[in-house]
Structures are given as C-alpha cells and as structure tokens.
C-alpha cells in the first residue's frame, strides 16, 4: 500500500507555509461571484410573506389581489387557513415577480386574517415560563450531598448568556430553476454535496436531478446546511412561472429572525471545594431555549467533566422564536462561560489566582488534554503579562478606569469528515483537484492546493482546485470543524495514488522501479540521486494522451493517521471598564490554540482572530432582544443587534500551539474551538476589574452599572 502519511515537519515544502489565500484577490477586488450576485437570464425575484406574530392561527388567506399585481408571475401558500404559525417571521406565502419591487408589492397585497394566540418568548426567568419548561431528568454522579457537607468552601452564582443569531452577511437563499429534466440550484450553502438531495427530497424528485453550484459563500457559521423552506418555495415558484429561474434571498430582518440562532443558556451553579482550590462537588440547574424545540443542556461542567460528585438538572424551554441551528461549536461557548465564570468566582472567593485554580483542577479534565492545557496556560499567561497585570478581584485602583484580566478555555473534536477527492494529472503537466466541498472563507481551497503541491513536489500555484459543484466527488458538509481534516486527507490520498501511477509510467525510463521514485522540487527523481531525474513536465509528457485520474477518500472510521480529533485552547482577556459609564473596552485578547498539524499557520491564525472577535461581540454587544408582550424580536437589524467594529476589539495576539507532539497527531479541525473560550475570558476579566460578577452577558453598560450598584448597596 502506498505511504499516505504526512511528510515529517522538517521536510515539508508546501504544508506549513504561511501562504495568502487562493481566492483572495478575487474577493478583494469584488470579482468573486456569490450566488446572491448572479443575474440569470429571465430571472424572477422571490419574496416571502412572513408572520408578524409570534403565535397565531390563520383564519383565512387571500392571494387573489397579489396575483393581479403587475409583474407577479406566481404566488405559493405555505401555511394554509386553519394552520398555525409558531414564531415571528415564520414563512406563510411566497411571491415571484419580474422585479423585487413587484414581488414586494405582491406580498403586500396578500390579505390574511390572523387569530392571535398566546406566546412565550422570554426564558431568563424560569419561574415565569409556565408549562414551557421540560425537565431533562436529574443526573447524579458520586455523592454531591456529602461533597457539599464536607466542603471547606463553597461558591455559588447564577449566570446567563442570551440567544444569538448567526447574522451571516450573505443572507440565506438561492436561485432555483425548474426544468423538465431537473433543477438547477445555486444556494448559499455549507453543504454543496448534501444540499441537492435535501432539496430533491422536499420536491419529491430523484436526488440525481438537482445540480448544485456555488463558488463562494458569504458566511454560514453552522446555519447553512439544509435547502430550507425558502429553497423549496423558490423551486415551486420557478415551476409555477414556467421554469424561469427565481432568486429568493432573505432580507435582514427575516434572516435574523428565522435563519438560525444559538440557544441561550442560564444556570445556577454551586461548587464545593477544598481551600487549596480543588473542586470536590458540582451542582447545576440550567435552562435554555432555541425556539419551539427548547434548548439542550450545554456540556456541564465544561472540560472538568470528571469532577467526582455532581448533580445536574436541565430544562429545555420552548419559546415562540425562530428555530435554533448549529452555531460554531454548538453549546460549547455557553458551557465554557457558565463553567469558567463559576470557577473564577470560586477563585475570587478563595483569594486565589484563577489560573492556579484551573491548573489544580486539570485532574478532572480528560487525561489526553491535560498536558496541553498546562502548557497553554503558561504560554497564554506569558503573552498576556499575567504575572505583571493580574490582581485580586477588584484590586484595580481608585480611578474610574478599572483594568482586569480573565481566562477561558475550550475543547473540541474536529476529526475529518467523509470526503472524496479526484486528482488528475494531465499530460501537459497541469494538475487538478476536484471535491464537492466548499470554502467558507476558512481557506479550504488554499490548503487543498498546499496538500497537493506537497505530494507532487510542485509550487502551490500549479495546482488547480475546483470546489463548489455536486458533480465533483462528494464531501460532507462543512460543520463541526471537520472539513480541514476531511478534505486534506482525501486530497493526500488521491494525490499519492495519482503520483504512484505517474511513477509507474516513468520508472522504466529512469532505469528504476516506481517505489524508488520521489517527487521533489518540480522533478521526479530516484530517491537520493538527483542526477537521475525528469522534470515534472517531461514526466507527464510520457502519459501520451491519457491523463491520470485517481480518487482518494477520507474514511472517518479509518483516517490512516492523517487526521484525528481533540484539541485544547486557552484565551485570556485584558479589559478596561469605565465605572462611571459601564462601558467595557478591550485592551487585549490572547489566544493559544492547538489543532494538530497546521497546514497553513496564517489562515489558521485568521480563524482564531475571527473567533476572538466573535467572542468580543458575544461578550459585550450581541443579543437577540424579545418583547414579552408583543412576542416580537425588537432588534432584527444590524443597528441594535450590535456587532463590534474595527475599533472595538483592541489588540489580539494569537499563538498556534505548533509543536512536534501536536503535529504528529495529524490534522484537527479549527473553525470552532477558538470561538469557545473568549466570552468566558472577557466576562471574567470584567469581574476581575470591577470587583463584582456581572451575571448576564453581553456586558452592556446597563448590566455593568447595575452590578456595580448592587455591589455598592450590598
């Protein structure tokens, strides 16, 4: 069997290079075409009519006036008379027309008589949600009662993190064209190979009849896997309009209301501990919502899963809000925040340095990660000047600006997904890689090219990578940080297979056998004897008219040592709080992250930088705000659904934990883990700065000032 394993760190040429991204200039010059950019011949525009109410029954719906609006070509009804809608912006009907304006006029002309029904949209106070809470059943490990009775110290607190929305800048949506032989589909998706069958299932046509193409996607973050109601409706509108293509992308308010959100998480947490900081017991009562399906329990206690005595209770709260979707590291940021905040509060109570408390309790973390955390805490502390800047909680001087430091941690799986790759070597020397995968902006195209270039001993620019079409060999969706491991491994296997074939063709000419050949520096040569060589071009010429095409598959059950799972990361935040205004300013964020073998450190760092910035948004600004009485989302816009800007983030330092011992584990996914620890770190830094825990994120001026006020009056 050919040797697929990664070349040793020291001899790699393309892998490990800090290259800029393959499609960078296309994007930065505005040439890159996203599917929302396409103007197809005879294009129609689709617009959804959505519910203004959080819960209502439709008594009647009349689309006749809409059908008469000039330009309107088709109207479809999704929720019929007698049926209910269960959240604001739920899809009710759709209109296609020759212009977007006409389609909107059509939507306005639809008459609906609603019977408004009672709703529950807020969950922060569990006592007020009535029968909407479903307890998951208590989980007990060890003897928590005894642990608390014998505890030298105990600490407790209540913490909350609200529902966030993905807010992908390219909204969800697609162009669909219905033809007699099948459907042409241009979605915005993280799932090029899987979304076609999904649409086909909804349309009740064979999966082979859906052609999917997407060159670029403007953000997904876990929310763009399925074809969704709007995909189906666009197809129906196209069919009803004689097969003209229909473009239907959500407007921003609908996007924020129904195109996915990250569930909230609230918890009352109690910890028993020894005076030296060792945690001996954990009790948590948590609840969460992510719409009508409730919200699952975040993995508590986070990382310190082996705390010997635990009692866990959780309730899923059903609320009339848009449905949850996977959001970068589902449930981990919530779990990290809840756990790290509780640990920090315990440390403060003990008057201890929280890093010491974290280290002390690494004994409860999975054994495989302990060394990593210990190493990373040390590195992160160094980068954040912890020993110089950290002080006891609240010991931040008498001025109005209080500075503080805090820490948060992450873990994640990230094994490579099922991925197929086709590698082709042409007689003219050109090489091509094809996968039914997608580049979410993580740099997938670029790293695939690096892997192929490494195998072939060619410059990275020589590799043509084609993604984004379901005619290419299938790769799984990009979710769960599984892409980098999956596509790099399948590419490695396919290119090694192709190279073997090339060796077979040229070995005799070089008076040797294929197993004695290697590809380096643009040549095929006898191992260790550079004199006996052919240039890559000359070698390929020997193929005559026949290209080599080989497949490679990453089989998650047998990844051949190319990829694996399980990472650790530590983040430290350094903030200043103006205690006269409650405004929190980021000074610095430090992230130390491992992800096994790093194919492109620059792109890896970009992932971590972006994740830190998302954490800053989540810790300080972002939240979906629901109105209890009207059931409305009050901020489905980018004005009051606040995101940080370029001047709001301070300095961010990233250290990729690239070490021999991490590298030899193979590739591990990175998209998600660095999004996990930041909110915890920032919230802890604020507590450290102002001397009191702000129980609920985001740490907006009102919440910060309220916490200070309570501390003053306590």
């Amino acid at each position, binding site marked *: 069997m050919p040797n697929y394993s990664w070349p040793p760190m020291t001899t790699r040429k393309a892998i490990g290079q800090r290259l800029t991204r393959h499609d960078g200039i296309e994007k930065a010059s*505005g*040439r890159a075409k*996203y599917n929302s950019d396409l103007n197809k011949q005879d294009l129609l525009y689709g617009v959804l009519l959505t519910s203004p109410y959080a819960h209502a029954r439709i008594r009647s719906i009349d689309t006749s006036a809409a059908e008469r609006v000039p330009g309107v070509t088709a109207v479809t009804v999704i929720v019929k008379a007698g049926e209910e809608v269960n959240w604001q912006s739920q899809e009710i009907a759709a209109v296609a027309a020759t212009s977007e304006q006409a389609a909107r006029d059509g939507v306005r002309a639809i008459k609906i008589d609603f019977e408004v029904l009672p709703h529950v949209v807020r969950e922060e106070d569990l006592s007020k949600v009535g029968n909407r809470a479903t307890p998951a059943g208590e989980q007990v490990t060890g003897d928590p009662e005894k642990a608390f009775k014998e505890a030298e110290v105990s600490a407790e607190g209540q913490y909350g993190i609200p529902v966030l929305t993905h*807010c992908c*800048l390219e909204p969800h949506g697609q162009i669909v064209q219905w033809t007699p032989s099948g459907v042409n589909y241009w979605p915005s998706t993280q799932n090029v190979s899987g979304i076609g069958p999904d649409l086909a299932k909804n349309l009740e046509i064979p999966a082979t009849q859906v052609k999917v193409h997407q060159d670029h996607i*403007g953000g997904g973050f876990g929310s763009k896997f399925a074809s969704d109601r709007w995909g189906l409706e666009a197809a129906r509108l196209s069919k009803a309009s004689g097969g003209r293509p229909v473009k239907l992308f959500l407007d921003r308010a609908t996007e924020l209301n129904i195109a996915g959100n990250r569930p909230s998480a609230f918890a009352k947490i109690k910890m028993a501990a020894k005076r030296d900081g060792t945690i001996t017991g954990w009790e948590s009562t948590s609840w969460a919502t992510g719409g009508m399906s409730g919200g699952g329990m975040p993995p508590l206690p986070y990382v310190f899963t082996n705390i010997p005595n635990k009692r866990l209770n959780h309730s899923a709260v059903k609320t009339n809000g848009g449905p949850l979707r996977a959001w970068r590291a589902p449930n981990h940021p919530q779990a990290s925040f809840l756990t790290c905040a509780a640990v920090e509060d315990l440390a403060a109570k003990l008057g201890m340095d929280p890093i010491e408390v974290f280290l002390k309790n690494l004994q409860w973390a999975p054994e495989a990660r302990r060394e990593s955390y210990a190493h990373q805490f040390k590195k992160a502390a160094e980068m954040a000047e912890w020993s110089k800047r950290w002080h006891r909680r609240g010991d931040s001087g008498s001025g109005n600006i209080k500075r503080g430091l805090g820490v948060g941690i992450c873990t994640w799986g990230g094994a490579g997904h099922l991925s197929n790759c086709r590698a082709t070597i042409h007689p003219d020397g050109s090489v091509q890689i094809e996968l039914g995968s997608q580049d979410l902006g993580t740099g997938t195209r670029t790293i695939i090219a690096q892997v192929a270039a490494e195998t072939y001993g060619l410059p990275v620019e020589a590799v043509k990578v084609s993604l984004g079409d379901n005619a290419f060999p299938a790769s799984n969706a990009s979710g769960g940080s599984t892409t980098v491991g999956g596509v790099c491994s399948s590419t490695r296997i396919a290119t090694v297979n192709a190279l073997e074939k090339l060796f077979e063709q040229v070995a005799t000419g070089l008076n040797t056998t294929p197993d004695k050949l290697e590809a380096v520096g643009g040549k095929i040569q006898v191992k260790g004897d550079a004199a006996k060589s052919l240039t890559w071009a000359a070698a390929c010429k020997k193929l005559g008219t026949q290209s080599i095409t080989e497949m490679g598959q990453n089989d998650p059950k047998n990844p051949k040592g190319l990829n694996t799972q399980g990472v650790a990361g530590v983040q430290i935040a350094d903030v200043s709080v103006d205690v006269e205004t409650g405004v929190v300013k980021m000074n610095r964020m430090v992230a130390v992250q491992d992800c096994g073998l790093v194919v492109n450190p620059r792109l890896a760092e970009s992932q971590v*930088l972006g994740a830190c910035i998302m954490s800053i948004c989540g810790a300080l600004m972002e939240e979906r705000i629901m109105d209890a009485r009207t059931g409305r989302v009050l901020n489905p816009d980018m004005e009051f659904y606040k995101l940080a*800007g*370029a001047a709001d983030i301070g300095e961010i330092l990233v250290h990729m934990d690239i070490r021999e011992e991490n590298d030899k584990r193979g590739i591990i996914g990175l998209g998600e883990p660095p999004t996990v620890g930041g909110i915890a770190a920032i919230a802890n830094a604020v507590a450290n700065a102002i001397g009191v825990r702000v129980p609920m994120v985001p740490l907006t001026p009102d919440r910060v000032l309220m916490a200070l006020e309570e501390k003053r009056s306590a």
Partner: protein
Amino acid sequence: MSKHHDELDEKAHPNSGFSRRGFLRGVGVTSGALGGAILTEEEAEAAQSAATPSGPAAVPITLTVNGKPQKLTVEPRVTLLDACRTQLDLTGAKRVCDRGTCGACTMIMNGKVVYSCTVLAIDAQGKQISTIESLTVAGKAHPVSQAFVKNDAQQCGYCTPGFVMATKGYLDRNPAPTTEEQAGKALGGNLCRCGTYVGVRKAVIEAAKAMKGAKNA
C-alpha cells in the same frame, strides 16, 4: 463634466459662502448660471425631472458609473445599489443590512463614501459614482485590494468589497494614517461578521504606504 460645472458655478457666485460641495450637489439641474450652457443628455433628463415629478412608473435615467454614462430604466424607488447589482451586473457591492448600517454596499460618490443601499438611483444622476469594479485597472488589482490579500483581511469576503471601498475613500482624503487605531476608527461605518478587523487595520496602513509610494514613484 462636473469639473466644468464647478468652474461655472464658482464664477457665478464668487463669494457666496457656499461650499464647492454644495454646488456639486446642485450639478445636473438647471440654474441661472447654466442658462446658456449646452446641456448633456443626463442634465437634460435631470432638468426635465426638476420641472415635473417623474414616476412612479419606471423612468429612463443616466448614471455615471466608473466614468461611463449608463442608461437605465428604473422606478424611482430603486436604490443605486440594486440598480448597479441587477441592471449593470456590478455585484461587488453587496446588500447586507439594506438600512445604511453595515457598509457592505459602500460606493464612492463625488469622492466620498456612501451607503448605496440608501441612495435612490434616480437621485444619483449627475454624480460620479465609483464601484469596487473600477479599482481593477487593466487587470491589475488596486493597492488597497492587494493589501487586503496580503494581510488576510478577509474570510468569507462578503463584507470585503465594502471595506475596500471605505478604505479607498478614507485614504483618498487622509493619505497618511500611521496607527492601526486610526485605521480602525476610520472604518466605523463597516461591519464584518467573520472577524477580519485585525487584518483590515493592517491592510489600511500598508495600502497607505503603497499608494504613497506609487504616487512618489
């Protein structure tokens, strides 16, 4: 064309106290100073619309986009962004918030950055509009675009054209920012969800240097 008008206007009102910019906004409509001047087609259209309201049905308009006059037919309610994206296939500028908040639709109009989602196409007649597409000249990317690539100031890239245009607009007026903090503040009208600001701030400073270098060379 607009230069010609500036001169005319300034001659006509030497010390009026109106800023040049005030006049620029007036370009394209008949004024006393323009009485005898020969109107271009665009101005004729605009002048017409001054006398009587146009619409609500679609009306012919001329936009000067990337230096070229473009004839379109739009309803008055169509925004500059939508007109460029759907009728001119200039899709670099993106529609994200569609409410003048996020900057993804940024274009430069008469030398200044604007949110094109919040400008009516009909209201943009007579203005010099430049979109990100104009930044590539003879196949060569603009120094700002290049700096974005070099500093990996993009991930999904959907916000990027807006950031590039905002950066260009900023550097045209402030050619020598020195700190990343200044750069960050200058881009207060643009948002990115993927979190590319660290690269963006570096790119601004680097592009400033490259553009200065190009000018001095």
